[in-house]
């Protein structure tokens, strides 16, 4: 594939408006690219209408299986007026950058892994082992795509996974997990001159928060790379009018997990707080999870991490950093799969994710294609 075609392909994907929905546009297009090839197995895994995950398995040899993962959704554009280019234009600037929502997070990574696979197919590869492309929906919102694929076993046979998120071709090998939750407090309205006739939902919500905060502070382990568990209330709302005892109030809070605090354990603690409080008279608290993803553990000296580091340095021509990341990826769900395989995050991108004028450097994008090809061939050939 020539350079122009590679850029065109990315541009086409960037132009697809997959803001927290409509990922099937991308899945359908990617499927057409693999259509001509034998030895390719494509599976559409539907979440709901318009939202298909896509799994592409390439090669028939079962020696080893290397996965590449990318999500097809993007976040909202924010105010389009603030962009210098239309957010779904995929415009190319004079300094060889492509601008657009998702350019960095992470349609460039997605396109690069797809093109790497297509080029290997053109070369008659892989002769040994299999490449599995895992294209997900909803990574930016609920991670239901990666959750669904994990549950349905699509990752069980992997020996290693590259998550192609835009890291600027630096490497992350560990990241935080996330629990977003909402607690709704139900009280009973009354005139504020007769509060004894009612139950103040805000008061009970405050009691919840103070209890939950103290309880979760007991998770005091520190991860050498990711730091401590963080627990923040970020949204709160309650009450109807100033002279009524509030009948309802809710808050939303965000927990950043570390590998030492599995989501399951933290959830149990939170649920215990709710259950205990609900036994007190007047308390009626509901807990709802908006997002749950585990932290991704990792070892910077692990074989796969070191292998990817060497390959990346060879491609970019300088030393790359290995680090932990605050943000979550689909890896938070993938670690629930039956297989026990290392994951590494490396992909083309800039630090403009979720911002206006999001862009990717096209030279970096082209390098990522070469990098993914090299990683594939060497990993599938060898036993490193």
């Amino acid at each position: 594939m020539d350079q122009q075609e590679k850029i065109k392909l990315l541009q086409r994907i960037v132009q697809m408006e997959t803001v927290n929905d409509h990922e099937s546009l991308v899945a359908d297009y990617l499927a057409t690219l693999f259509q001509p090839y034998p030895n390719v197995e494509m599976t559409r895994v539907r979440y709901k209408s318009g939202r298909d995950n896509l799994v592409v398995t390439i090669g028939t040899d079962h020696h080893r299986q290397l996965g590449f993962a990318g999500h097809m959704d993007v976040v909202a554009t924010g105010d389009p007026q603030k962009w210098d280019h239309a957010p779904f234009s995929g415009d190319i600037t004079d300094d060889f950058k492509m601008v657009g929502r998702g350019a960095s997070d992470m349609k460039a990574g997605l396109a690069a892994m797809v093109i790497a696979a297509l080029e290997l197919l053109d070369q008659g590869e892989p002769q040994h082992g299999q490449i599995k492309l895992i294209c997900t929906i909803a990574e930016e919102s609920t991670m239901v795509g990666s959750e669904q694929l994990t549950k349905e076993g699509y990752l069980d046979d992997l020996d290693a996974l590259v998550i192609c998120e835009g890291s600027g071709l630096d490497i992350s090998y560990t990241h935080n997990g996330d629990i977003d939750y909402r607690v709704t407090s139900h009280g009973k309205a009354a005139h504020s001159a007769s509060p004894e006739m009612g139950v103040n939902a805000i008061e009970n919500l405050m009691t919840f928060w103070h209890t939950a905060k103290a309880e979760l502070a007991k998770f005091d382990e520190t991860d050498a790379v990711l730091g401590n568990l963080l627990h923040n209330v970020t949204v709160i709302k309650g009450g109807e009018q100033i002279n009524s005892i509030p009948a309802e109030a809710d808050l939303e809070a965000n927990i950043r997990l570390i590998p030492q605090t599995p989501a399951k354990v933290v959830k149990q603690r939170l649920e215990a707080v709710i259950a205990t409080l609900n036994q007190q008279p007047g308390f009626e608290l509901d807990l709802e999870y908006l997002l749950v993803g585990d932290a991704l553990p990792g070892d910077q000296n692990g074989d796969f991490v070191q292998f990817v580091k060497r390959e990346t340095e060879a491609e970019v021509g300088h030393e790359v950093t290995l680090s932990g990341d605050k943000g979550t990826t689909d890896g938070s769900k993938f670690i629930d799969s039956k297989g026990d395989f290392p994951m590494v995050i490396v992909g083309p991108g800039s630090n403009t994710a979720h911002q206006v004028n999001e862009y990717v450097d096209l030279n970096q994008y082209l390098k990522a294609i070469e990098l993914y090809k090299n990683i594939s061939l060497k990993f599938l050939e060898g036993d490193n």
Partner: protein
Amino acid sequence: MEKQEKIDILKHIIQIKSVNDNETEVADYIASLFEKYPNAKVEKVNYAPNRDNLAVTIGNPKGQRLGFSGHMDVVDPGDLSKWTHDPFGGEVADGKIFGRGASDMKTGLTAQVIAMLEFLEDGVELPGEIRLLATVGEETGEYGAATLTDEGYADNLAGLVISEPSGLDQITYTARGVIDYRIESTGKAAHSARPQNGINAIDNLMVYYNEIQKVMAPFDKVNPILGGVLHNVDLIEGGEQINSIPAKAWLMANMRTIPEYPNQVFYDAIEKLVAELNESPGFDLKLSYSFPEEAIPGQPDAPLVKLAQKVSKETFGKEAQPVGSGGANDGAEFLRAKGDFTSIVYGPGSETSHMPDEYVELADFLKSIDFYKKLALEFLA
């Protein structure tokens, strides 16, 4: 005055849409009723465009002055589909008149107006004066009463009867004060993965919430009628999205005070806490009040209360009992005026104030006119 004429006046006043505004139309109509009596002194006291208070004074300036008072504004009719009568129709059915304000409180106001008109019509030689103080903006903050008080219209009253719908078996002689206040917390936004780069405005607001409970706890005196001081956070809001450290949050609290404490002690306590917290790093709390009112102490055995009890028995056959009110009324403002007087609330109404199909029994309306007349004559005698 004929019964039908009285009902027509009430109907006319209910038909005027004075929803938190436009009280001038009510004031002008009432003023027009007094036009043919040159001895009635009619004064409009402006609060804002289209929002005039009205003071009407009749009788003998050498005697004592009794105040009558009612507010001319009404609350919003709300969901119109829940009404079976036009909220501004003044429809009469089954001996009731329906409409927004029928209970709260155009009926009480109209009854006092008609009581005065009948004195004039019948040429009654009053031993003292009656001054009607018809106010704007009671439902949203008693600012009409505040204006009238500031301009001296409530000075030197010997007593005040506010015709809010107390229920004809109850005389409100004491009432809680109110302090509504807002605390706004300003922080600094950051990604929730990097809270150290931001300041969580909700966290700081919660610290205020916790501390204010401790600050309020020592104010533990209990009024035998009204109860203890009440402090409730009734509204709270903050934050933008779940993965951002919130930059803004606010709460609104409602305090119900008692005569044992002047409101100033609470202002001082709240302001001190806000100032102290703002000394802590990262705190930026701002305090504002909306229309606070002092508590009305009152005495259950005050002569005006006793007299109202006696007249209620004579008029309605049952003696009304002195009670306290959990909510403030215009009396809280009028009591700031020069002179020391008793302010009571007594008037016709129903349990439908602020609700759909608000109504009053016409019989209650008509009898309460007699009540106000008798009460005035005996009080001024």
